[in-house]
């Protein structure tokens, strides 16, 4: 869900950056500036539909369904927490909050994933470099590029540590992973010394013919989210 897809290269970089950042802004708006939960849920549902539409342009249907399953999973977890707290006499969360909570989580997750699905790492590096953050942009790319292998090591360490301590000290997994990160950083520094960063051959485009579709659908979303406050919910 966090890998860039070339399927959206018919749209300009500017349009894709604007779409991704507008979605994040709308999410913040829906979260913090809604008068009540029902308004917020309606806004989030609209944003989620748009996110799913964009994701469907980039990914296969299976991945989108997986994304939707997340809502269900988090709703179930929320419900379990509620009933457990209720049974134990603890301060239980409001059950009405469980669905919006799951919805918030999924919309924010998808929203942030769009930052990487719509805009490639090279484009990010180029944008950040032009904004005067060249070193940070490179460090960012190097760190992001190591995420898949780090996830693999996480699974390896989880298996080994769980059995070694008979499932008792799962937090100890942090030690070998932290050490591995240090060693990886040093090896990355070695590789940087030998090969340096690849030259950036990225053309950041400001307009393409198809942008109009993206802008119009975004305008519809912004108008819809803004007008929800006026609805008698």
């Amino acid at each position: 869900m966090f890998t860039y897809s070339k399927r959206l290269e018919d749209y300009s970089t500017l349009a894709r950056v604007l779409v991704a950042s507008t979605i994040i802004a709308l999410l913040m708006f829906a979260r913090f500036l809604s008068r009540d939960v029902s308004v917020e849920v309606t806004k989030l549902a609209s944003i989620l539909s748009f996110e799913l539409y964009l994701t469907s342009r980039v990914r296969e249907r299976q991945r989108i369904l997986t994304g939707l399953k997340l809502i269900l999973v988090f709703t179930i977890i929320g419900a379990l927490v509620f009933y457990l707290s209720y049974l134990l006499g603890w301060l239980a969360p409001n059950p009405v909050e469980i669905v919006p909570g799951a919805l918030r989580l999924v919309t924010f997750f998808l929203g942030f994933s769009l930052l990487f699905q719509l805009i490639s790492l090279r484009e990010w590096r180029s944008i950040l470099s032009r904004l005067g953050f060249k070193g940070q942009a490179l460090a960012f790319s190097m760190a992001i590029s190591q995420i898949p292998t780090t996830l693999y090591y996480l699974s390896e360490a989880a298996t080994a540590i769980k059995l070694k301590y008979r499932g008792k000290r799962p937090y100890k997994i942090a030690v070998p992973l932290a050490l591995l990160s240090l060693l990886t950083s040093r090896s990355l520094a070695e590789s940087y010394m030998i090969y340096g960063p690849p030259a950036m051959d990225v053309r950041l485009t400001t307009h393409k013919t198809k942008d109009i579709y993206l802008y119009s659908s975004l305008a519809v979303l912004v108008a819809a989210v803004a007008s929800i406050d006026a609805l008698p919910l």
Partner: protein
Amino acid sequence: MMGRLVLEVSDLWVRYPRGDWVLRGIDLQVNRGEQVLVIGDTGSGKTTLARAITGLAKTIYECDVKGRILLSGMEVDGMHCEVLSRHVALVGQNPYLYFIEPLVGDDLYGYALKVHCDGRLASDAFNKVVDAMGIRRLTERFFFEISGGEARRALVAKAIISNASLLIFDEPLMWLDDRGVEDFVDLLEMLRRLERTVMIFEHRFVPLLKRVDKVYVLKDGKLADVTSRALTTFEKLSHQLPHGFYFEKKTGKGDLLLEAKDVYFKYDAKGDYLLKGIDLQLCRGDVVLIYGLNGQGKTTLLKILAGYLKPHKGKVLRRGSVLYIPQNIALFYTESTIEKEVVEVFKAWRMKTKAKVGLDVVRGLNIDPLSSPFSLSHGQMVKLAVGLASALDVDVLLLDEPFSGLTYDDRLKLLELLYQSNSAVVVATSSLDATEAPYWTKLYKLEEGRLVEMRAIEKASLIRASRLYRELVGVESA
């Protein structure tokens, strides 16, 4: 074109901050087009020598470096890294660390553009290298999705884009399966045709022995030319010791500890099964080898046996404790000293009072309990984990590729240690050169998701390789 000096090292001394001298007066000359192999014990200084030649010893590790290193007649000391990268390229142990762009093609082209500073020249260089290395199909893939062998091949392509006069390979066979080793040998032939000068630092040297021009042993900080001795000893041992073996099935000594019944597994709900109908029985005293090329599902199978992954169909019955030792052995350790490691593990296993037994095992392995587990060599880390398992009386011990990065001699010693263990042991490996008949009770091959019993191994040669290693490096007999 042979004869022009590419690398000249004279009286090279290197030590790490606050450490003793690792290299003590190295002299070496490598001519253009030559392929040179350097072998030696773990910790003998092979990687340090590679770091010194590439200038990394000073810049990254702040080593004290004395002596002289000339690359194509130019002094390495003080050379700017941009200039240095045009003279020497390093292909390190972990090829995945050398890619910054997620797509292999983007990374290679980006590097070509950096080197040539012109789009057309970069495209030409990129296409030439990609075709020469036969990696066109890899250019559209993410680097983290390709196998270790493919990643190394792509990294070699990156290394030769700059036309560097010297290519250094640090343990290139470390993560490769048998097919990957054959590919690497082919790659060396290709580099020979391209007249590239190559230096290889490798533990698993037998497949390379007849392919290189010179063989050196690095021992006690000094380099010795053993080219002719290596070849004559290899020939002599080939006649004395058989190559390969036929296997007679043995059985474990005791109770049934683990049983996998008709296990099916896949990661992707809509994808094909990675494992299909796996049946396996493990008794106490069994030492089982599961051989398979990379990507066949060996690690997945071990994680299912360990209980970390659940099979989609079938079941796994465990009748005892299980310990999993990962391929990246550093992920096994969690404490600042080995003594703390032992105490914590014994506490978790409710055997706090028996921690002394664990510490005795540590001392028996000639390891200082007050040292950090992370300061040990790869081989020592694996042996310590096996020692701990034996002190804890673990019933089932699962090891994923424990031999990678070990010398032949250390492989043999580890096998002997596993054979003496009182546990049921399962070892997953992708290379048959780590196998030898007397130590296994069952042999399996994992191929296309199925586990098939093996009756013979044609390439097994660990005892021969270990003897060759001992004769060349001069280590004590195991």
